[in-house]
């Protein structure tokens, strides 16, 4: 047991850490310290660079600049295995256990020496592994295969492996993703114990809320840069953070009440999706009426993308998804897309080596030539930027332009229902403005129905007729935008 206390010298010290991937700056001059027995929360939306920072500390990438000190030793640029031996343990979000070995053997793996001559396991490795297993609450399943474990237990196993070597610094990636509230509590307790052991803990997550209870301090990132640092309250209060997550003040312009049709265009009834052991969607039920603009807000990892992929037939699901009253099950993703449900995915999925025009033409292949030409003209009016960039190779476009292209390409298919997944991901406010306007035009000038998934509420709200809030794989709130601020916003950040 190391003596806790903030006086002690920091175990983990990150100094001006910078990493560039080609043109993109994933982490820019990041500096923070974690002392023994301290828990630091590193938060930021997707693409904010928080994961990169974690990987840099672990040595999975080599930083362009800056230093990483573990207990005073600069390990920047070391290979991962040496950094690990220096005293860093990591809990990956997605575990890849040895499926043919038992839980105990998997944990033992973490205890083995990096030595070719150690062909026989000695007694105390067994005992140590048992102890650790007991400690993380795996005592009962020691001799089972990982494949037979519950998701939470798999996470426990990862935790056990990470702390097997009794590391000074523990990195945890999205500690609570995919866990039920009960399990979350249990995990919090485990992580809290690290504080008692005097380890330095770095929790990496999307938002403050999930780790506020646990973290002593929060370090918030956006677009590779530090935007705020301090206690959970301070950070949640921080205007920049609020702008990043919620945008500015929430606009609650009320909309004329719509007359809902008898049969909705898209109806989803208790749809559940499992990723291996992880519950990605839990009995979700939503409906979208003809011509309606529905926003699903929720943090990254809440399950929005999974829901959309289920609709597009890309992931297996239980439950029923019906389109114009007919069940979508059994139709190929392509058929669904041709049927009028077009998804514009979070990852954009552009044809990087093709020009803007080629990307659009591909989508237009289903239309008659005349139609396609007309549609193209309309899209170029909607996104004038794209007309200027017509011949440019998609890969070389700016993030915002790529997003416009992605949306335009989906519209090129003349969808009845357009699914927009995180169109604002990592985009600068100015671009958001333009995209926002485009959506507004869509909404007011076309009969198109839109299903928008967003974590940025200010972007999601203004256009929406109805809002669903998705949290931990469940729909937790449904209602008109006007009521969101009052009922949901508070719990949101």
């Amino acid at each position, binding site marked *: 047991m190391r003596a806790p206390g903030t006086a002690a010298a920091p175990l983990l010290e990150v100094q001006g850490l910078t990493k560039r991937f080609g043109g993109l700056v994933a982490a820019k001059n990041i500096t923070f310290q974690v002392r023994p027995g301290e828990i630091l929360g590193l938060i930021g939306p997707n693409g904010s660079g928080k994961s990169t920072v974690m990987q840099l500390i672990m040595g999975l990438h080599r930083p362009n600049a800056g230093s990483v000190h573990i207990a005073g030793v600069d390990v920047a640029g070391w290979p991962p295995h040496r950094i690990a031996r220096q005293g860093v343990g990591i809990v990956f979000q997605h575990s890849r256990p040895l499926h043919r070995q038992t839980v105990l053997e998997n944990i033992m793996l973490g205890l083995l020496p990096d030595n070719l001559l150690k062909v026989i396991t000695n007694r105390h490795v067994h005992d140590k592994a048992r102890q650790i297993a007991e400690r993380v609450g795996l005592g009962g399943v020691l001799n089972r295969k990982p494949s037979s474990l519950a998701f939470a237990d798999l996470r426990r196993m990862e935790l056990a492996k990470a702390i097997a070597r009794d590391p000074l610094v523990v990195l945890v990636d999205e500690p609570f993703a995919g866990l039920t509230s009960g399990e979350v509590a249990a995990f919090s307790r485990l992580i809290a114990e690290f504080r008692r052991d005097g380890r330095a803990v770095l929790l990496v997550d999307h938002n403050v809320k999930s780790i506020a209870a646990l973290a002593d301090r929060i370090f918030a990132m956006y677009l590779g840069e530090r935007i705020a640092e301090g206690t959970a309250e301070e950070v949640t209060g921080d205007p920049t953070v609020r702008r990043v997550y919620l945008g500015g003040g929430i606009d609650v312009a009320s909309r004329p009440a719509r007359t809902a049709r008898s049969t909705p265009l898209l109806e989803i009834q208790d749809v559940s999706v499992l990723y291996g052991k992880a519950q990605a969607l839990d009995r979700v039920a939503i409906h979208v009426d003809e011509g309606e603009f529905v926003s699903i807000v929720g943090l990254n990892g809440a399950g929005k993308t999974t829901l959309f992929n289920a609709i*597009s037939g*890309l992931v297996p699901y239980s439950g029923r998804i019906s389109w114009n009253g007919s069940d979508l099950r059994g139709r*190929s*993703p*392509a*058929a669904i*897309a*041709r049927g009028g449900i*077009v*998804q514009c*995915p979070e990852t954009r*999925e*552009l*044809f*990087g*080596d*093709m020009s803007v025009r*080629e990307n659009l*033409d*591909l*989508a237009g*292949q*289903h239309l008659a030539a005349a139609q396609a030409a007309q549609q193209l003209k309309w899209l170029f009016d909607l996104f004038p930027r794209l007309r200027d960039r017509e011949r440019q190779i998609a890969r070389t476009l700016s993030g915002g332009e790529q997003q416009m292209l992605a949306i335009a*390409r*989906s519209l090129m*298919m003349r969808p009845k229902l357009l699914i927009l997944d995180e169109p604002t991901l990592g985009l600068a406010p100015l671009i958001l403005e333009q995209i926002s306007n485009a959506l507004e035009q869509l909404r007011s000038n076309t009969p198109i129905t839109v299903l928008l998934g967003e974590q940025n509420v200010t972007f999601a709200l203004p256009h929406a007729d109805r809002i669903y809030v998705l949290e931990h794989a469940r729909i937790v709130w449904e209602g008109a935008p006007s009521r969101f601020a009052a009922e949901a916003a508070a719990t949101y950040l």
Partner: protein
Amino acid sequence: MLAVQILIDGFAISALYGLGAVGFTLMFGVSGVLNLAHGATMVVAAVAAWVVAGQLAASPWMAAVAGTAAGVITAFATYFLVVRPIQRSKSVPAAEKEIFVLTGTLLWGIMIQETVAYFYTDNPKSVQPLIAGVMQIGGVRTPINELLIAVICWAVIGLLWLLVHRSKAGKVLLAASINPRALTLLGFELSRVYLSVWAIYGVLAGIAGVLLATFLGASSAQASQLTASAFSIVVLGGLGSVAGSLLAAYVVGYLETLTAYLISPTYRSMPALVLLVIVLYVRPRGLLGRR
């Protein structure tokens, strides 16, 4: 004189290598399949042409068509009997599909090879040149057929280029090679895309096989050798890069011809192999490889 000779000989053989490799690399680029039954496919085409020309005494052109058709049929057989079952199999873990497809097509290739040998012996077969006779180029006597082969190869490759870059269907192929998932989201059935790729592949391998039979002669015993050479050319050029394969084909072709002329025919294939090793270590993605 010697220079001209090397230039001419190298050109034809390289063109043939190129044609052989292009289909192979296209297949990998679009559908991620390395078809180790490639050589066998070429041999089938060659022998089919030989049978039609010899046994049925048809014209060389008829034979060529028949051979190409045989190539396409073999390609489809490979896809439906071996590749697709593996790709669709739920029991094969995704991470291991590659090795399974490799092993599967390998075995399938051996089966084809043995079948050919059983019915027509493993003796090399040669088809009458489409145009017989020779002509003088810069004082070098060159079989007209050799030139014709170079022309046909380039014509076919040119057509392929047009198809891929100028036609709607071609665009879809290209897109599939860049981002298949996106293609699905845009409402294109990948299964159909793959089908057309295998068809194109069959045509290319077929033509290559027939030309091989008219030029050097082809034997079922050569099947694995043909696969190996296509494979190494493709890797040298960069997996999935058509332009790279062509470049590599010429590098290899001329390297071999030069060695054969200036050093000794015995060492013919060695420098190319050494070069391949170097490239693999120095620049694994090959000369023009993207990935």
